[in-house]
């Protein structure tokens, strides 16, 4: 039952979608082929479905697609490619931080919100931005270390 229309900017492109008023943004995205955004718990706990809504990290599984009307949505597909990974993606690869990989798109989107919103990355701030993403492989140490390398580099560059 597709009886509603929603328009929003998706990864920089103005789009219009048919949807159901009860459909979650996550389901719409995956239905439209944006499958980098994962379905994990479906109840706003694990963070695998994290996308950016007007630059803020949100759970796509808890958001009705209709709530995105007129907003800017960014998914993991905007972050980098296999051939040309983003800085954080490259650090994750170099650090061997990706185990099963299911949580990684969400981790990257939360980290993107952090890097775009803040200029100082003390541990408390980083924890605050990353506290809604779980890694069931419990690979936090390497993910944290990879992120820390990117953040330290950014802070150092800003000081110059």
């Amino acid at each position, binding site marked *: 039952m597709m009886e*509603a229309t929603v328009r929003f900017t998706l990864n920089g492109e103005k789009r219009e979608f048919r949807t159901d008023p009860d459909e979650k943004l996550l389901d719409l995205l995956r239905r439209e082929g944006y499958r980098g955004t994962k379905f994990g718990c479906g109840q*706003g706990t694990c963070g695998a479905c994290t996308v950016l809504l007007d630059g803020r990290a949100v759970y796509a599984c*808890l958001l009705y697609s209709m709530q995105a009307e007129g907003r800017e949505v960014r998914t993991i597909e905007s972050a980098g490619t296999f051939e040309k990974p983003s800085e954080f993606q490259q650090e994750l690869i170099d650090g061997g931080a990706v185990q099963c990989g299911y949580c990684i798109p969400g981790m990257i989107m*939360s980290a993107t919100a952090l890097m775009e919103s803040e200029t100082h990355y003390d541990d408390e701030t980083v924890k605050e931005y990353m506290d*809604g993403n779980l890694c069931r492989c419990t690979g936090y140490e390497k993910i944290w270390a990879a992120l820390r390398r990117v953040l330290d580099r950014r802070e150092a560059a800003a000081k110059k």
Partner: protein
Amino acid sequence: MKVCDFIRPASLAEAREALKNLGSHGMALAGGTALHFLLDEAPVTAVDLTRLGMSYIREEDGWYRIGATTPIADIQRHRAPRWALHEICRRMATHQIRNVSTIGGNIARVFPWADLPVVLLAMGAEMAVEGDAGEELVGADAFFAEQPAKRFEGSGSLLTAVKVPALAAHHGFGSVKVVRTSAAFSMATLAVKLELDGDGIASARVAAGAALPFPRRLPEVEAALAGKEAGEAAFAEAAKVAEGAAPWRGKEGMSAEYSKHLAGVALRDALERAARFARERE
């Protein structure tokens, strides 16, 4: 909750009209993060309240006025002289939820584990409710006397803002939330506002939730604190009084006895924080 239609009213008046006409078939929607957990079978029309200019924090004659659809994250990041709401907001849910979930959504329908009602009760907050006769300010005690959702259902009246008093000098605030993991629902939430006169407690407002069926004030504890010196002895005594002051209940593996003990410990912690706030914070 099944959403069968979604409307975006252009004004508060339009939103109120729509909700009045929809009656029990309408659902006011702000962040909507809790809607997914309401298991009602009957489909509803969601009325989006997030595009009506109700996301703001303003200073107003000794009060902070917070728009009903202000996300928890904005309250958490806000800093102002003798502002105390950010602490509990940092302890709520996760980053992604705090970005979406709103202060109004948190209190217009109170879940037993909710933290904000406890904090607002202790602060003596006022809720701005827009109804047919214009804006009415409802004190926290009246607002949380029963499930606030009852007040709103089908009436077309809407919560538009929450007013919290800017704390005066010598007033302090402390809130404590006990959880097993940082994103978990609260096991016990305690909040205290202390008004000190020198070292003495001129008056106290104490509220609790999560370990109770519904958030509430603890008047016996407040009475036990009044007139005492703000320190360890009075706080320990208050914790003892608290054990008998409310129907502490067990849940999720906690016995009622444990829950009672936990509330006492959390209360002492909240009292210490409030006293420190009153004495030290600019």
